[in-house]
């Protein structure tokens, strides 16, 4: 019996409503800033392991929901029963990376396993050797030190398996925060269990199973329809991660993308990439597949001004985006004990970026330039002791600033992109809340002038964040990328500035940190200056609407000098008084004509001066 389309839509809406309810529960009961910043996701997976609903999940998370639910069935099989809950963060079997601990609740109705509710949250600490949830330099999983839960039972008959909780108590810093976030995730998954049982009762089991099949078919059809509008052909993508500890040449990455609009299908082949590396950078199966899929979904959904999702993100759509992987590959399926500590960014960002950019080379109007790369200090992990709380330890990830999104053919990049994993969904810290909770001071958090990749549409600028400890030294962990191999523009668009980290001493002397992976102690009186990467440009800068360039000058995103040198826009008036500025149309035309002979350098006339150290006045 086929389900009529109206009922189909109503049922899908109900499932999305349940997932949103899970999200609400998580966001309101979360303990850590990481979770509060929305580094978590909720989804509903069918008993067949096909992800059905994840309306607001962050891109890097939700793809793997199906894989981990499948792992649960493979490992526990018929032993799975009502009242169970499972905890996984296993990078070797479906999870994104060890920091994303996931609670799975198998949902039963009339004795049958029908759905699995999945609540995944990036924990503030997971017991790594170092006080961070990102260990890019880890040699392997032993060196990384994370507690790995290979889909273990964490609740039986609706009660905690206390052995697991006690293990965590011994090995996880800030255990109370961990337990609070665990409860938030569990609460969300259990809530979904009740709601899904009611859903089954409402429609009957047969109809629900029918619905799952038909809804995924529908989403598959929508995906095929969207792909049919892409240009046909094969395109080769490549990029290279910056040199990294133990990887002097960085990691060269590539992909072959076959777009088959007639068949409504895209194949991304990631097999021709290096083997797993002795670092924490290796991707997992879920993040490798997710990276390629996310890039294609971004190509399909990037339409200005629409408030509507064109292609829903679920297993139906994944049927049309095939990702080819191999084992023991840095962009593939890691082999134990390779570490995948930072599998949700860095290499992921590179893969998404190179696919977006490669698609853009196929035809004007599609794809995007490179986004920002790296995880600069403004979103690093800070740790220390809090004198205000009797010297209690603290560890938390900052979200105190922004990095720039890539330009598309339709618009300038999104200013608060952060990385492709979150794609702008994440919240930005309130400085006052951070300072109330932790003994640090965030002195500056503003747009980084002249950092954008120029273009007809320009990349979004990066950010400038300055922060330091208040009473006792802190340590900040972060890593940079796109310092050497910078974010590239496309179709004539230009590259952007990469991230930088500086240590400013108490006497005002600033030292640029040269390491890729920073573990920097910051003393009282000292500050970290974080410059984040910007997005790259789309189309030639000389084709940018001069009025937009003027606006960028007036609003201080770029300097007048750069407007002229990079965009060929000559302004009249007093640069110190923006209200007097206007575009000199004639001079602009002449300047732009000259660009035809010699395109300006990507970094022409950028203001790269360090910010004034006014905060040193603080005693």
């Amino acid at each position, binding site marked *: 019996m086929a389900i009529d389309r*109206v009922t189909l839509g109503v049922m899908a809406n109900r499932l999305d409503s349940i997932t949103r309810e899970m999200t609400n529960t998580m966001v309101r009961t979360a303990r*850590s800033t990481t979770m509060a910043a929305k580094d978590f996701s909720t989804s509903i997976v069918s008993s067949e392991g096909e992800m059905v609903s994840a309306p607001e999940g962050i891109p890097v998370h939700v793809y793997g929901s199906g894989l981990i639910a499948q792992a649960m069935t493979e490992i526990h099989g018929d032993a799975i029963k009502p009242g169970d809950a499972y905890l996984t963060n296993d990078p070797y079997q479906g999870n994104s990376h060890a920091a994303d601990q996931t609670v799975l609740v198998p949902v039963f109705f009339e004795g049958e396993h029908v759905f699995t509710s999945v609540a995944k949250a990036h924990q503030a600490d997971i017991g790594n050797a170092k006080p961070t949830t990102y260990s890019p330099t880890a040699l392997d999983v032993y060196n990384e030190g994370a507690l790995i839960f290979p889909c273990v039972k964490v609740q039986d008959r609706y009660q905690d398996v206390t052995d697991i909780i006690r293990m965590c108590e011994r090995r996880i810093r800030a255990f109370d925060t961990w337990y609070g976030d665990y409860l938030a995730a569990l609460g969300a998954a259990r809530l979904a269990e009740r709601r899904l049982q009611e859903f089954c*009762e409402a429609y009957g089991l047969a109809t629900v199973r029918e619905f799952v099949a038909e809804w995924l078919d529908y989403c598959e059809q929508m995906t095929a*329809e969207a792909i049919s509008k892409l240009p046909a052909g094969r395109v080769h993508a490549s990029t290279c991660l910056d040199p990294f500890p133990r990887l002097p040449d960085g990691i060269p990455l590539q992909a072959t993308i076959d777009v088959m609009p007639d068949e409504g299908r895209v194949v991304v082949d990631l097999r021709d990439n290096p083997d797993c590396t002795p670092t924490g950078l290796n991707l997992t199966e879920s993040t490798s597949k997710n990276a390629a899929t996310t890039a294609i979904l971004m190509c399909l959904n990037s339409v200005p001004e629409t408030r509507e999702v064109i292609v829903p993100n679920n297993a139906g759509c994944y049927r049309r985006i095939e990702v080819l992987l191999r084992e023991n590959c840095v962009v593939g399926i890691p082999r134990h004990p390779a570490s995948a500590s930072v599998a949700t960014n860095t290499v992921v960002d590179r893969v998404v970026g190179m696919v977006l950019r490669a698609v853009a080379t196929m035809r004007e109007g599609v794809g995007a330039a490179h986004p920002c790369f790296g995880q600069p200090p403004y979103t690093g992990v800070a740790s220390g002791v809090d004198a205000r709380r009797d010297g209690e330890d603290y560890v938390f990830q900052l979200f105190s600033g922004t990095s720039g999104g890539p330009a598309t053919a339709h618009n*300038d990049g999104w200013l608060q992109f952060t990385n492709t994993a979150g794609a702008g969904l994440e919240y930005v810290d309130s400085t006052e*809340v951070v300072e109330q909770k932790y003994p640090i001071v965030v002195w500056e*958090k*503003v747009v980084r002038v002249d950092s954008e990749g120029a273009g007809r549409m320009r990349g979004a600028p990066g950010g400038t964040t300055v922060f330091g400890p208040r009473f006792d030294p802190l340590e900040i962990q972060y890593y940079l990328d796109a310092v050497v191999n910078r974010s590239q523009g496309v179709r004539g668009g230009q590259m952007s500035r990469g991230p930088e980290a500086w240590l400013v001493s108490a006497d005002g002397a600033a030292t640029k940190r040269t390491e890729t992976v920073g573990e920097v102690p910051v003393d009282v009186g000292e500050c970290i200056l974080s410059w984040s990467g910007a997005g790259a440009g789309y189309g030639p800068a000389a084709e940018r609407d001069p009025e937009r360039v003027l606006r960028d000058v007036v609003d201080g995103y770029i300097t007048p000098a750069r407007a002229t040198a990079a965009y060929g826009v000559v302004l009249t008036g007093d640069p110190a008084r923006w209200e007097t500025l206007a575009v000199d149309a004639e001079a602009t035309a002449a300047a732009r004509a000259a660009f035809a002979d010699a395109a300006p350098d990507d970094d022409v006339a950028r203001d790269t001066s360090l910010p004034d150290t*006014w905060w040193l006045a*603080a005693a």
Partner: protein
Amino acid sequence: MTPTYTISVDTGGTFTDLVLADQDEVIGLFKSSTTPDDLFVGITGAIEKAAAHVGLPIADLLAATKVFVYSTTRSTNAILTGNVAKTAFVTTRGNRDILLYREGGKDQPHNLALPFKTPYVPRRLCFEITERVLADGSVAVELDEAAARATLERIGELEVEAIGVCLLWSILNPEHELRIGELIEEILPGVEYSLSHQVNRIVREYRRASSTVIDASIKPLMRDHLNDLESRLRGLGFNGDPLMVTHVSGGVMRTEQMCERPIQTVDSGPALAPVAGVVYAEAEPDAKAPDVLVVDTGGTSFDVSIANEGRILYTREKWLGPKWYGHMTGLPAVDTQSLGAGGGSIARVDAGGLLHVGPESAGADPGPVAYGKGGTEPTVTDAALVLGYIDPDNFLGGAMKLDLEAARSAMLEKVGEPLGLSAEGAAEAILRVASESMRGFITDMTVAQGRDPRQCVMIAGGGAAGLNIVRIARDLGVRQIIIPRLAAGLSATGGQFSDISATFSIGQYASSAAFDFDKVNATVGELKTALTSFLDAVDQPGEREMRFVCEARYDQQIWEIDVDLGEGREFHGPEDLAWLQERFDAAHLNLFAVNQPGFPIEIVTWRGEGRIIRPKPALTTAGADDDDAGAAADVDVTTRTGWFGGEPMDTAVHRVEDMSALTRIEGPAIIEEPTTTIVLDPGSVAQVRPTHYLVEIAGADEAAIAAGTVGAEA
């Protein structure tokens, strides 16, 4: 004896609603078209109708009016259209982009092409001042006065009309903000300004900054508008108490007080709907539930709010415009959330054969196909017409003829044929999908507030409420709906029942682990002082009360919840702290169904509300305004075909001007009131009361289980 009147006016986007009451009861609802260029014209139009109704010249009616309550969209519209004062933002050095960044976040993760959100004040008008206060209120960097002067002089050069000043941690140490205020008065006399610690003294700099710049930007226009309105009313003969203006907390205050913090008027109209809702819920003896769910449906928006045990629920996250893309007011406000859905929502079938309704709207122009004004896309109103719910010859009391055939053929062509449905089948599908999104919206909201829809009585207001409210209620598991006979003027009705009130907040941190009793008592004391001076400045009689709330969280949690502190208990020892802890644990359990009793808590904000309880009229016994109001007293029953669940049914149509109590109408039926139409699905029964209809739905519970919206246990 001449009665003493109270007039409440709500200027909406389309209509200006006026509710007139005398000292005993509500007399009626009078509607006039809103005149955006000069709101006074629309207001006078409504006053004239009211005056005619009571047989008085307008001057005499106004002379006999003691209280005039005014609820305005003036500030909301000015903000949404950008028609506010040229405003500059002044903040602590290093924080120029507070308004640009907001708190981050967006939807549509896979859409890279969305234009970035526009800040309330453009970056070019955002200025930094060298100074810095820290989280304990200590001064880390002194205010650089010379630089501040230079900045203000520069702002003067830019011909700025208003300035919002928000410095970090001014909530704990306002010295620098106050000094900048003095410098503004000295250097830029005549320029309006707002200081963040005075507008909204809460932690979280974006919210406070947003409150402050919004407030500053509407100060000049609201001062002019309110003073102008008051003096023109007095010119027409109004001789009563000072004009009362409604605020976002569902209360009113004098013009003079409102002009100090005009941001309180923003989005204040919808805040009155639940005030009326609570009154209706209390007036109906047969519908008692702890929670009241108020929905107000207009042509383009569907507003929802909730009251628990007679108390209207608040939010700190009030957005003007869409979440993430709009601006947060930052003030505690009645939690009214708005879905862009209504009679004008357009239906379309996508490439995969799925039916969508909205978010695109045909609005009022061209409007639905049936209006015959050039609309080609079928809308919810067209669907209701095709289903026989609306009489094409009696729409808006006959004010407009609807083109049924045009609606049918658009319905068939755009929805029916792609889905293989008849015109009626397509119309049914549209109402089903539209109702589903409204149901989902209500569910999101009730869940976020920790309420269970099945524990709610629903109050349905707005001109378009009655078309599908019964089916929405059924899917939610709501068993009883109250539909006021003045449904089309819910907010204006609320104006009759609002109290004089003000809310103040202080962002003072406290932790149960190291509770600073003196500081907390001083904070509550400060709130009491502020409230006392507000109350003392009001001449009107009435019982005065103060209530206090703190916003608290478990240690290291991110978001706070409200904890009711009653009338302002002082904290002296462990037993007071234990009392607070218990209240918090209970509130957490109530909201999230989980808690950790005894786990340390942090309090971030203290809030106090002062209230002067005004005398209230009884709800009306009369109908709404109409030229024949009071004339036709008989129930006029006809029959036409209405479609329910895909089946044609003989449907009784009750066209009512006045009905005796105790009349009972069983669905399927349609009740046509002059300003609203109520569709009773089969299985629902309406009890006719003098002031409202009580609709009871058989089997709502089972339907909700069937709809998967409620749990067997929440």
